[in-house]
């Protein structure tokens, strides 16, 4: 039986998630794994926006901020389960992305970058300043999602990090599945035509504006969910979740791993999340090492780590 590229990607991802714990020396690594997967969800959204539709965003952390604080605030103020906060945040982010998407996406290249950047910074400023609501820069605590008690009720006996790792594994697989389906659908082909040339796509009758907007809204929902899940995983959220650096970090993960592919971007998330933990041995030289690695990867593997390595592998084997 001939498996499609989509199936291969999902199988590879599932195997990685399932087998990685065999190499975990302590349960701390489940925590790293869970953080990687949260970032993985956000960058999967960015693959749809950047990898498929070719649109840059330096402001997606803004949506993560909306997601994170929805998960924190809605259960407190409306006395509902945090899951509803997470869902409400996703809806809110989607609607907001739809509203700002049209004017923002008319911009191109660096102008698009600065407009999205501005959006992210506006969200950050509001979260930082409205201390009565959000707790200000020191952040606020977030109600538990109840995964641990669920695991205990099911008799699994997993600790917090472990249960979150497996939960996030399922979420990311689902997110990747949806993204890959979009990739092979007619809409996905239309999106990818934008990546090559918007003008050409337009002359071929692709409704450029509509497809760009669709990609923007979907990626905003992914970022919002990632923000909610990060807040719920930590039981705590600060405005940094919406910060400019978070946006840049996600964009870097997407590019470093290989922007055109879901697998590459999640690989990039893994690399940039785990790297600082590994670089602790360099002590005060850690920043220099990190900056150097980012530059070297982009100089020598300009299409991103995973695609470049895969090409080497194919050529060699």
């Amino acid at each position: 039986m001939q498996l499609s590229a989509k199936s291969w990607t999902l199988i590879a991802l599932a195997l990685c998630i399932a087998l990685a714990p065999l190499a975990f020396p302590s349960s701390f690594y489940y925590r790293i794994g869970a953080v990687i997967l949260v970032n993985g969800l956000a960058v999967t959204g960015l693959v749809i926006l950047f990898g498929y539709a070719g649109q840059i965003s330096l402001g997606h952390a803004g949506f993560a901020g909306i997601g994170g604080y929805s998960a924190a605030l809605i259960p407190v103020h409306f006395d509902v389960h945090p899951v509803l906060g997470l869902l409400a945040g996703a809806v809110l982010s989607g609607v907001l992305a739809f509203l700002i998407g049209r004017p923002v996406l008319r911009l191109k290249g660096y102008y698009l970058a600065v407009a999205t950047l501005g959006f992210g910074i506006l969200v950050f400023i509001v979260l930082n300043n409205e201390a009565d609501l959000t707790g200000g820069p020191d952040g606020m605590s977030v109600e538990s999602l109840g995964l641990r008690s669920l695991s205990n009720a099911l008799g699994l006996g997993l600790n917090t990090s472990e249960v979150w790792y497996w939960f996030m594994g399922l979420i990311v697989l689902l997110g990747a599945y949806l993204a890959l389906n979009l990739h092979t659908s007619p809409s996905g082909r239309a999106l990818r035509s934008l990546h090559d040339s918007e003008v050409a796509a337009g002359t071929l009758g692709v409704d450029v504006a509509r497809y760009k907007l669709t990609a923007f809204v979907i990626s905003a929902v992914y970022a919002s969910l990632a923000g909610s899940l990060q807040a719920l995983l930590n039981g705590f959220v600060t405005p940094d979740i919406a910060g400019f650096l978070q946006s840049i970090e996600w964009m870097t993960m997407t590019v470093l791993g290989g922007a055109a592919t879901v697998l590459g971007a999640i690989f990039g998330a893994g690399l940039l999340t785990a790297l600082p933990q590994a670089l602790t041995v360099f002590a005060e030289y850690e920043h220099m090492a990190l900056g150097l690695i980012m530059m070297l990867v982009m100089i020598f593997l300009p299409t991103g780590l995973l695609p470049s390595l895969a090409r080497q592998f194919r050529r060699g084997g």
Partner: protein
Amino acid sequence: MRLMSSTAAISALVLLAASPANAEIRIGSILSVTGPASFLGDPELKTLEMLVEELNANGGINGEEVVLIHYDDGGDANTARTLATRLVEDDEVVAVVGGSTTGVTLAVAPVFEENEIPFISMAGAVSIIDPVNPWVFKTPHTDRMACESIYTDLNARGLTSIGLISGQGGFGASMREQCIDVAPEYGITIAADETYGPRDSDMTPQLTSIAATDGVQAIVNPGFGQGPAIVTRNYAQLGIELPLYQSHGVASDAFIELAGEAANGVRLPGSATLVVDLLPADDPQHDVVTAYRDAYVARYNEPVSTFGGYAYDAFWLMVNAIEAAGTTDGEAVREAIENTTGWVGVTGVFNMSPEDHMGLDLSAFRMLEIVDGHWTLVE
């Protein structure tokens, strides 16, 4: 980058002489050595490294060597949470000192609570110890106490109406809130309330507005970093005559250097660290503070700051508690910290209890005034 900017340094200050028969006591630490709060984390880490060496040279705790495992959170709460998990689950530390900022402290506290590991924070906000979390302690005075100390001085000068200009970072925002909250108890009115961003370079518009507000009799500036130095320079530039109060956030010689002549006349609540040479010999803190200052300056060739003192107190409170408990069992150490009474530290005299996990009173703050570029005690 946030995660990327998270640095971490394992400072395993292991004495080569330690014999393998001796067990080791692993104390964890998470500090903001880089990032916007690095001027807190930097002296804190330097102090801890110095003290661990000193302790081990003197035989460690009950003959057991102490190993400090330190990570840098870069000021980011999410990173700090990951590192807290690492300390607990990977490094298996028995106690933790650290948390340079309130945001980081509040983010990591649940990890230590869940794993029943005593944790002494070096961050300011009152929310860390109120309500009391059985596993969480702190050494700095609260920002609320800083406000109270300033207000006490205002009362003595007969001033009742102030303008606030606060930094938008965690420290400034939290202290601003406390200053507003506690003002009525001292009969103080907040007539103007302005803020500035952590990287702002000119605050003359905010100061102009405050000075133009009817009835403002003094200006209070909660914040740390370069902001307060710029506020002070701008204040002098505008020729504002009202008394200016800074917070304990800038209690270091660097502030005087950066603010230049404009610093003269500025008052702030600070710890004894800054006025070591002015302390009378019979002051209970005299010997402790002098010894710490001399050791720090000798080792690092830079002036001491109030913040390193927080680390000094946190470290010794923890070490003394482990020694007193005679075990590294979390519950026993936690109780030993709670039982600390009359212990003289750099920041003040600590009297812990199950209800008070900081153990300092207002006397730990000394009202200082900068005169001719030097710290003086306000009588």
